[in-house]
């Protein structure tokens, strides 16, 4: 069943449509989540959350803004990243008992974040397709170097080398010296 048929089914029967989306794109969601959450139990919990989010939000999907695959990838990535961040905070909190967690989102930080995003967009536009894919695997899909290396047919050492050069270049272009 292709995306067009899926959308038609969603319009006709949202429950059956959502289940069909999960059947079709379940492996994709699992692939994105397991790249970020290495613990199998965490990944299963996250996939359950994604299923719930899908039941609630799938009707909001707008095909004009991109493919369903891209939308689901973003949903899975963000949900998994939230899980990962929550787990990190828990562990930090346990280690530094009694300390208040930092306040992450201030207006100044938000403005700075948007500026950096624009700078990054310009830098990404200048990358080759191969380097852009490497970047997204590392920073968007948050895949491990081992996974990136295996899927690109590279040795880990070679993948590390490419990532190192990519980081140096980005750092140079984003205002750092990049020579460390």
């Amino acid at each position, binding site marked *: 069943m292709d995306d067009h048929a899926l959308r038609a089914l969603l319009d006709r029967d949202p429950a059956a449509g959502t289940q069909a989306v999960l059947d079709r794109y379940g492996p994709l969601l699992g*692939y994105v989540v397991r790249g970020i959450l290495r613990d199998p139990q965490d990944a299963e919990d996250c996939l359950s959350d994604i299923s719930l989010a899908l039941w609630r939000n799938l009707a909001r999907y707008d095909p004009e803004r991109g493919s369903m695959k*891209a939308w689901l990838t973003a949903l899975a990535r963000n949900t998994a990243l939230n899980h990962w961040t929550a787990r990190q905070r828990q562990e930090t909190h346990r280690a530094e008992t009694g300390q208040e967690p930092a306040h992450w989102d201030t207006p100044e930080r938000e403005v700075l974040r948007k500026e950096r*995003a624009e700078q990054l967009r310009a830098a*990404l536009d200048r990358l080759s397709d191969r380097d852009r*894919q490497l970047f*997204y695997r590392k*920073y968007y899909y948050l895949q491990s170097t081992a996974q990136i290396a295996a899927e690109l047919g590279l*040795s880990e050492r070679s993948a590390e080398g490419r990532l190192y050069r990519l980081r140096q270049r980005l750092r140079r272009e984003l205002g750092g010296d990049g020579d460390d």
Partner: protein
Amino acid sequence: MTDWKDFDDALRDAVADLPPPEDTVQTVTPFRAAIRSVTAGLCLSFFTLDAWYLQYLLPALGAVLLCLGTRSLRNNSRWFCFMWIISVCEALSLYCNTMLRATRLPDLTAFPWLSLGLRAALLVCLHLGLRQAAAETGHSPKGAPVLWALVWYGVLVLLGIFWPQPGWIVFLTMAAAFVCIVRSLLRVSAQLSEAGYSLRAAPVRVSGGKLAAAYLLSLAALTAGLSLAANHLPVEGHPVEQLSGSSETAAIRTDLKALGFPEDLLDLLPETEIAKLSGAEGVQVNLEAAWADSTDNGVRYTDLFVLTSPRSVRCYHFFTVDTPVAVLQNQVRMEASSFHQISNPAGQILWNRGGTLYAASLSLEEETYTNPLFSQTYSSFTALFSYPFAGKDRQGWCAYTASFAPDEWPGSVSILRYQTQALRNLFPYAPLPEQPQVGMLNDLESQSYSTYDFGPTWIGN
């Protein structure tokens, strides 16, 4: 270190506002690179073009791509693992076979069914591996593109066996079959578009690019080296001792010079050959002996005939060679008219190295053939050889004795054909006479064609 970690965290946060473009979303998969490699490898293995060495280059590249693709998939199921093993066997077999083809040893084409069997097993394993991968995610694959590829491949093989010289209709059918195979194989990639996310790429110790480069470059280097070694036909050279010899041969030399035998050519002949010219009665020389219609392959000729007795002529063909060093195999072939007996062939090649003149005897083999129309038997003498790589001023000569019946006077035609090797025929190895001809009229063969006539005024009749 913390600095880099902060930078990584900043990038991770910033990229949340920059979701990947559509093509990146489609590209980031565990199987895409692998399955594309497999598909391209299969296409290149099926595809054969008998020109510009593509019949060797494309399958070698295809074998590498198949190995790299199946290497990534090998941990997912036993079928992919079998496929990987088969592709490694195929790549090794192709590697060995290519090298064997560069030598004088027999290659592995004596076992064509083994290769066909491996190819069929590879496709079956791919089909079963894809079905299993789809089944594990609850998908049911539509159709069987790989099996269709197998069927089409079988048709091609059968056509090749039972109809090796097909007409245009069969050729077009085969071309259509190939297009179908490619389309079928491309459907493999599409079929995995969702189910393939359950696959896991196997880690590798050597990057695919390095492995491919090592395979292809070492194969090219070894094949080139073996081709040069196999096509170089060594000769046993020895320094030529200048101005030596007995007083008897010195007298013969004096007589021959007096008859018009050029001194520089006489200096090329060994004592044993000069001794055969004892009692010479006449000399005829053709300095520009190349046949007018002959190709210029860098060989220049001087033909010379010595009347050694009233019914016997010693025919000489001297030649200088100015061909590229890459020309390894050379062939000389002396031919004469059928109206007299030819015998006692001899020949040498000579070259200069470090200021010293070297010579090596040619091994001239006689070939006879009979003209069925006139029941006449012709003889020719042929030799295959190579000049040493470092040799300069390459030249040589070859000769035979023509004997005439008492009622004939000595006069006839003598031909020397000199064929050089085309660079493109260095691989695969074959003796020069069995190599593909260059051009409609054999562009790399030139000939000298001279007539001689020692008529009544010469023999005193």
